[in-house]
């Protein structure tokens, strides 16, 4: 079917859905703006109380209120900011332990019927070499990723009839079918456009991890401006309730995000919070992860450098830290859009829990690693270009436990069975145990000598000691599985 016809038919179906939508829009622009305005000059005691409350919330999983987040966002005092950064790091370590889960994005298609002003994949970008991967190309890409050590992917798709729900299902099945030596992809998350319930059901049935939809901006007027009329993405309501529909279709691991730089970052923070609250209210399960990509230059997308809301590095650090305080149980994803030094700083200051590494975002980019970055095939520019192994080495030097854990969703710890673990800050017991086992597997199969040395002699002993001190019974089982991993048995996990 021609893309234009497909788009028209789909737009008609979306309009019908909007007319019968049972949900009330949970984003009140005026209220959010007022909350930010009335807390313009917070006093020190007020901020300190909120920081203390954020610490208490760790064991209950409660979120901060919108007015409290507005206060944090308006805080100016550098000393208070130090306290916020320190708290973000403490919350992350308390909930998830000191591990960083590693993943890679895999761009499957750049064909898109939309025309978003900030995106290199927009329909009117004449310089874009729009394409989608066929089965053989997917296999080649996944082999490269597996052979570098990856176990977890996020598969990214443009909105186009060539990359519809059926293509998503086929490509995920292909990804899971690839085995290279002793490696495989064990968890495939999805970043794709909002779907209808029947499409979500199809996608759910191929065994995906998390379904991720970024609202891009929660500010209605800005949303309309950057997503032109006559495109599918123009409908705010369709997108903002995209994850509600996913949940109704039985997908219970869902992820939200904002593209910072389109509108005032303080407003967007509150938008994320209201979205998390709406999901919790409706389904009792909040977002599995929150992502906070920032506008970076993209080919033929001038908005990416000219927006008046571009976020400075300093403010970006604040955003990441506030997200950690406001929603303590949620995974926090910092991507390779950001530069090495900034990422290295924000991991700690922001309480980050997941990061991509060795990233290529061009279609077919992993199979053509030697060509470095392929701008005419990319959605935006990557700033952290370290290899996975170099990235892991840097994490080890800082004392982190690099983790390739994908155990949770394979052990039935999904949705309502996962949330209490994160909300009561006990999930770290599994995180550290599975982090040790999967890192050991990496050391055995893929690591360079320098990573193997620091991993075997420092990182693994340190975290084994942590488990022995905190979960002695689990430690015995970890030691047993570690022994099995050392004798080349794979996929040991809890």
């Amino acid at each position: 079917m021609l893309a234009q016809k497909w788009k028209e038919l789909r737009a008609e179906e979306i309009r019908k859905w909007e007319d019968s939508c049972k949900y009330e829009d949970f984003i009140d622009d005026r209220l959010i703006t007022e909350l930010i305005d009335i807390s313009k000059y917070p006093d020190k005691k007020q901020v300190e109380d909120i920081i203390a409350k954020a610490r208490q919330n760790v064991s209950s999983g409660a979120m901060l209120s919108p007015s409290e987040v507005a206060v944090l966002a308006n805080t100016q005092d550098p000393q208070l900011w130090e306290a916020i950064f320190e708290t973000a790091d403490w919350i992350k370590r308390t909930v998830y332990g000191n591990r960083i889960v590693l993943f890679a994005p895999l761009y499957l298609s750049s064909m898109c019927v939309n025309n978003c002003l900030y995106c290199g994949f927009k329909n009117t970008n004449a310089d874009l070499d729009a394409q989608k991967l066929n089965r053989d190309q997917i296999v080649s890409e996944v082999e490269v990723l597996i052979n570098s050590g990856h176990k977890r992917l996020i598969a990214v798709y443009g909105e186009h009839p060539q990359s519809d729900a059926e293509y998503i299902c086929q490509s995920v099945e292909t990804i899971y079918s690839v085995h290279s030596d002793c490696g495989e992809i064990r968890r495939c998350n999805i970043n794709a456009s909002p779907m209808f319930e029947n499409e979500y059901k199809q996608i759910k049935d191929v065994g995906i991890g998390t379904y991720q939809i970024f609202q891009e901006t929660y500010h209605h007027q800005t949303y309309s401006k950057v997503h032109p009329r006559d495109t599918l993405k123009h409908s705010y309501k369709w997108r903002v309730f995209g994850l509600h529909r996913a949940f109704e279709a039985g997908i219970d691991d869902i992820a939200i995000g904002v593209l910072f730089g389109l509108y005032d970052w303080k407003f967007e923070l509150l938008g994320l919070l209201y979205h998390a609250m709406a999901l919790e209210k409706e389904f009792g399960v909040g977002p599995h992860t929150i992502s906070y990509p920032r506008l970076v230059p993209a080919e033929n997308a001038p908005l990416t450098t000219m927006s008046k809301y571009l976020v400075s590095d300093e403010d970006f650090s604040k955003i990441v830290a506030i997200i950690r305080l406001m929603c303590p149980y949620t995974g926090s994803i910092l991507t390779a859009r950001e530069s090495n030094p900034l990422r290295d700083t924000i991991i700690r200051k922001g309480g980050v829990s997941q990061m991509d590494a060795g990233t290529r975002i061009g279609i077919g980019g992993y199979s053509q690693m030697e060509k470095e970055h392929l701008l005419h095939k990319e959605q935006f520019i990557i700033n952290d270009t370290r290899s996975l192994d170099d990235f892991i080495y840097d994490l080890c030097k800082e004392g982190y436990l690099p983790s390739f854990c994908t155990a949770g969703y394979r052990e039935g710890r999904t949705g309502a069975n996962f949330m209490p673990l994160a909300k009561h800050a006990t999930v770290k017991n599994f995180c550290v145990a599975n982090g040790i086992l999967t890192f050991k597997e990496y050391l055995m199969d893929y690591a360079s000598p320098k990573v193997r040395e620091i991993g075997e002699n420092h990182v693994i002993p340190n975290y084994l000691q942590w488990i022995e001190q905190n979960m002695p019974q689990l430690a015995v089982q970890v030691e047993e599985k570690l022994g099995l991993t050392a004798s080349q048995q794979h996929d040991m996990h809890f």
Partner: protein
Amino acid sequence: MLSEDSLVNIDYFLETISQKYHLDHAYFARKIGKRRHFLVGYGNEQFIENNHFDITDNIVFFWQTRADLFDVQIIRDSLLNIARQLEQELN
């Protein structure tokens, strides 16, 4: 999605089974590729190794216990009917 009635019934059933066989945590999950999609459970996470078995083509039963090993086959037999009912409802 399971109906509220089913959830209540299965919850009660799991509670009974757990008490009888000293299971600290017991739950059903649906097999979807690699994913084991949580359906309904009883008890609390113990942070010890999960045991599991497939009861039907699509339903897995996970459990954790600190008690001595028991006859798994007996549990499997006790769960079969309810697992079939679960599977039927999900289909």
